């Protein structure tokens, strides 16, 4: 259904379309950030595409891609045509600290969506007239949906009371017990790659979150070598 739009875009923009995929029937087109608004406006205005119904703008954080030299964020636009009943997903890769042109002149609905992306990822939109935090409060520091923002960090506006004397204490503090998340992004990005869930362990292949568990394999091989070396040393002594 929306393959037509992909072809239309490829015909119109040629090399500006960096990638066109069709995973599970979701048509997705990748463009460079500088063509973001141009392609979006074309999607809305061309009669064969006519994507007048704004659906969503969101982002995904890939800090590991940045370490490999790529751009850190994926920003995505989802839109839909009332007339033709087809959809398109527009994607762009944006480096950290770079600004993206705002879509608010194209669809008014992008207003809150872009504010949310700014609030959660710290991506700034150029030309947005009212770019301020929307879900979090103004005093909040950091960008919560970035992978390097720890999930258990708290920033209370009013300081927590000292609850030593009450019986409402949790059974353990935040540093004790089971880790809250299965992936410790802080460790992973620092290169130590000590994944959480120590109770589960490396052997189960659990600690790796990525599908390619090359690091886990390397660690296992290292461990095996060490064991072999230990075994070789023991009879000598």
């Amino acid at each position: 259904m929306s393959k037509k739009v992909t072809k239309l875009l490829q015909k119109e923009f040629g090399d500006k379309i960096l990638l066109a995929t069709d995973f599970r029937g979701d048509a997705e087109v990748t463009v460079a950030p500088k063509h973001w608004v141009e392609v979006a406006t074309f999607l809305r205005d061309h009669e064969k595409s006519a994507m007048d119904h704004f659906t969503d703008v969101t982002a995904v954080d890939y800090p590991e891609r940045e370490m490999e030299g790529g751009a850190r964020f994926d920003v995505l636009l989802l839109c839909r045509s009332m007339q033709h009943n087809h959809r398109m997903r527009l994607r762009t890769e944006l480096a950290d600290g770079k600004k993206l042109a705002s879509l608010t002149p194209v669809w008014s609905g992008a207003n809150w969506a872009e504010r949310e992306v700014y609030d959660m990822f710290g991506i700034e939109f150029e030309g947005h007239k009212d770019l301020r935090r929307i879900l979090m409060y103004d005093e909040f520091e950091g960008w919560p949906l970035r992978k390097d923002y720890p999930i258990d960090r708290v920033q209370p506006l009013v300081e927590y009371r000292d609850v030593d004397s009450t019986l409402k204490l949790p059974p353990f503090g935040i540093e004790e017990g089971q880790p809250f998340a299965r992936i410790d992004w802080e460790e992973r990005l620092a290169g130590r790659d000590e994944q959480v869930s120590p109770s589960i362990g490396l052997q189960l292949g659990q600690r790796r979150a990525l599908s390619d568990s090359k690091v886990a394999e390397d660690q296992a091989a290292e461990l095996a070598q060490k064991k072999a070396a230990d075994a070789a040393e023991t009879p000598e002594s």
Partner: protein
Amino acid sequence: MEAPDEIFEDEDEALEIPADPMRLNMGPSHPAMHGTIRMVLDLDGETVMNVDVQPGYLHRGFEKSCERGTWAQVFPYADRLNYVSPMLNNVGFSLAVEKLLGIEVPDRGQYYRVILGELARICDHFTSNGAGAMELGAFTPFLWLLKVRDWVWDILERETGARMTHSFGRIGGMAFPPTDGFADDVRAIIPEIHKVVGEAEGLLLKNRIFLDRMQGVGILSKERAVALGCSGPVLRSTGVAYDVRKDHPYMVYDRFDFEVPVGEDGDNWDRFMVRMEEIRQSIRIIEQALDQMPTDGPVSVTDSRIMLPEKREVYTTIEATIAHFKLVMEGLKCPKGAVYSFTEGGNGELGFYIVSDGSGTPYRVRVRPPCWYNLQAVREMLIGDMIADIIPTFGSINMIGGECDR
């Protein structure tokens, strides 16, 4: 002769009304703002000149929380998005993961999902319309509608074990097959729903106060609604017949004969009436689904890499034990990739954009909350109306804080 002039001059000064609009904070915990939300109003007399709607007071970090567990552990969070129709969220999320996996649920499971989902939609519309009327002083219809909503919840409780937050959806099906008396229970409740909808309409539709406060208030135009990304009853009330169930049929919705009610003006009245009519259409879908639903067969896929094997097998066979262990400890492994899957939730297009990196943990779960965009349109509905009109307009949006703020 000079004295009166002096008096007039003084009076002029005394009666001078400041030309600046008055700024008024409404919320975040105002009794009429169900769902914690704050509105900063600029008022000229009683007329709303400008309004800044500030959501976020119920933000709990849904999307961040999803990134810390397994795919299956998202269901309890999804329940708490739109907590008056949790079954629709459950089904929406499982459909998204199933799309990523490339699997399809057996027919019986699909019908089961449709029926439970439509019951949840009826509950959602009951709540919205009932509470909306209550805020205008009509308490009786609210109580009557909620009485029947409770009976619907009785059915859901019998099926799922919980009245509200069911966590009943599973990736690849439903947690349990329908109970023995399910079809009879649902058939028995249908006349009651019809009856109470009629009764509520009888109480409200000719009530002068209700008419005055609903008709012509909170108007949204068709073009603006589309550009602002509205969906669901809010969009349909403006005259756009967009319903995901009709336009992009998912599950088995293409097998049912039902209509999409639309309004004309996009005012509170139309939103109210669209919801009332949708309850009737949902009943039509349920009746047809009950007739078509197979009485035998599985409701879930039997692949033990996706669904938990049966408990009896887990305790007796080693294969099932291993499958169970792997699913619980490592989680379901989704292929690498990203999909956007959308369903018709209680308030409109409920979308899930999910990204998997191939491990057992979701890389990113983005929910496209219909409330978010409907609420964005509230600003345009309110400007120019009176301050008292905020209550019915905001009520007719049916903003659910859990879904809007996540």
